[in-house]
């Protein structure tokens, strides 16, 4: 099986423009409504920004929490909400450590990131003007962190 890819956010680059939220709602809902975005921008004043979407947890707490078994695991590691079963109780939202699920105020059902299934990768990543978002594997994130750390050591030694 292919290593799972998630959306990671470089908090040094994220400036809090929220265009990821605009773009997400436009491509999923065909309208502008950032409250229906699958990715969520969080700002902690004065200088911290991050955008968070589904982390594809190995043992998704949202699935465990759902009393109606409305959330199922998909092969790529993401989750799918079966709209007929979901009654919008929101336990999954409480259970998720990242605030990656949201309640649709109009349809009264929960929704989560589908990584723009069927598209050429997530639209938020494609549109992020700051290149803060990346669609990548955790292995790759670790490797890049290692390279960065090692480069710093080399610089210091030189």
């Amino acid at each position, binding site marked *: 099986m292919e290593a799972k890819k998630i959306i990671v956010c470089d908090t040094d680059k994220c*400036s*809090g*423009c*929220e*265009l990821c939220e*605009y*773009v997400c709602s*436009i491509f999923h*809902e*065909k*309208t*502008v*409504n*950032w*409250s*229906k975005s699958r990715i969520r921008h969080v700002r902690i*004043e*004065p*200088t*911290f*920004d991050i955008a968070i979407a589904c982390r594809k947890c190995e043992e998704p707490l949202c699935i465990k929490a759902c009393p109606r078994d409305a959330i199922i695991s998909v092969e790529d590691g993401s989750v799918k909400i079966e709209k007929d079963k979901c009654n919008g109780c929101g336990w999954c939202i409480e259970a998720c450590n990242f605030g990656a699920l949201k309640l649709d*105020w109009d349809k009264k059902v929960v929704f989560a990131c589908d990584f723009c299934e069927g598209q050429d990768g997530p639209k938020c990543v494609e*549109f992020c*003007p*700051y290149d803060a978002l990346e669609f990548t594997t955790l292995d790759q994130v670790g490797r890049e962190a290692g390279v960065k750390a090692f480069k710093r050591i080399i610089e210091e030694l030189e």
Partner: protein
Amino acid sequence: MKGYAGKFLRVDMTTGEIRTDTLSEETARKFLGGYGFVANTLYNEVPEGTDPLSPENVLCFWTGPVAGTPVPVSSKYIMGARSPATGFIGFGIASGGPASELKAAGWDGIVVTGKADSLKYLYVQNGQAELREAAYLKGKTTWETEEMIRSELSDEEIRVSSIGPAGELLSCLANVTNDRNRQVGRSGMGCVMGSKNLKAIAIRGTGSIEVAHLDELMELCSDLYKRCRGPATEKYRVLGTPANVLVHNRLGCLPTNNFQKGTFERAEECSGERMLETMVKKVMACPSCPIACDHINVVKEGRWAGAVSSVDYESLELLGPNCGVSDLGAITKAVELCDTLGIDTISAGVTVSWAMEAYEKGLLTREDTNGLDLRFGNDEAMVEAVRVMCLREGKLGELIADGSARAAERLGKGSEFAMVNKKLEWGAYSLRSLQTATLGFATSVRGACYLRSGSYQPDVKGLVDRYKLDRSRGKFVFDGENLYAIIDSMIICKFTRGIYKDNEEIASVINLVTGWDVTPEEMIKTGERIHNMAKLFNVKFGAHRTDDYPPPRAFDEKMYDDVSDGAIIVREQYDEALSGYYEERRWTEDGIPTKALLEELGLDVSLGV
């Protein structure tokens, strides 16, 4: 009608009544939004002779058609009222969450009249609004107010526009802050809020924003986002607006020591380059902005350790070099005080520099300055003067709280070096070494304004001899004002003006959002209509030619510095340039629109000549 919500709120603070009004398509087409709506509302609804601080003054909050859409840097709103600072049209535009949030809540704007009997705040949600008690927010800073309202209502996504203590204390120069770092800065809109006992407007919306042609708009926006990362905006992204410090210093147009000079010997110490290296912790963006210009300074060490603020060129320059100050820590602290206590940084800087000059000239003694040694270059005194100005503390606070023009009136001396037009403080561009700019600033409807026409551009770009004036300069101001009226009515950020290929592309943004079919020519005509509407408001409140002049220093004193030594504005040349501008505008020699022009623009002709 796409782009717009199609309705707005009317709030009567006296009775507490809140009702919905409809935005007609005719008004939308005629005045577009933002600045246009402010001019239209104020001209029609503020009764003749209304005192700016009376319940009859109208305070409006408007968005434009693009707020809440993916158009780059479009989450912007404007607040307007008869200005307590100038007595003419007052308004200020801010970026940030409240704009898109209001649209998502289903409203294009809010029109507030009356005065509440105790401090209140307005809470706007999807399709509804209520006035709530704000006694617990009395005396709180803008940053505290934002947090306390979110905490009271248990919703972190609420966007807040609020006033600080200075607004509550009715300083003519009080601003309105949202998202901590963005301000409706100029002409005292925070003072009008204070006069109505309105501490804040809190907004939360979750609705959808409809645009006419979403797919085509996204196609264009996708390209515009890329251009926002290109050379047209590089200056704003890398150094931010403080990049101007060294540029203007080289050109001899960096106001120094209350505009006496155009160069500052310690400019390097407070340059954008130095700030990025030593102060900037993070560069942040407003919602929908692919540029990010907001350079957040965090002072790590020294006297001002712990100070945090977003520092732009105007604030840095006027609280810095114009007060003879180069310490970036002190400047960051002064901006933080202005933003949290609630006074416009531009007016604060120029007012403190006025007090410094008055002190050095012996017009003020230590007895008048709360004991401060208020000479140019004393950074501690500058910061303390800003603080007492915001809080009306002591003799100095009482003297300068309402700006330099009123301070000179109170003192009975020093009006010849109060750097104002229409009693509002001048922006951070030197008068005598950027003379086209001066014409644009002095003729601007809101007073001493660099944002109405960008009239410094022909000077800075070397298209004209910037040390002289002639009749032809009016054309630059005229063209700039008409286009900027559109930018301010859509409302989009002026920092994106360079990413559009031409006016046709700007018109296409309007058309894709609204579904209209406006030509670039019609669009510019709308800009002309909007600007004339704003001017008519001023005429209604007694504007004449004499209101369109720079302060006396421009004509009476030569500059002394290395680059612009001896520069002065020749009065006859200014007279001629002003007449040229009026002629271009088809106004009379007294600056009054002609009836023929007003009729052509579809405006009320009763005040025309």
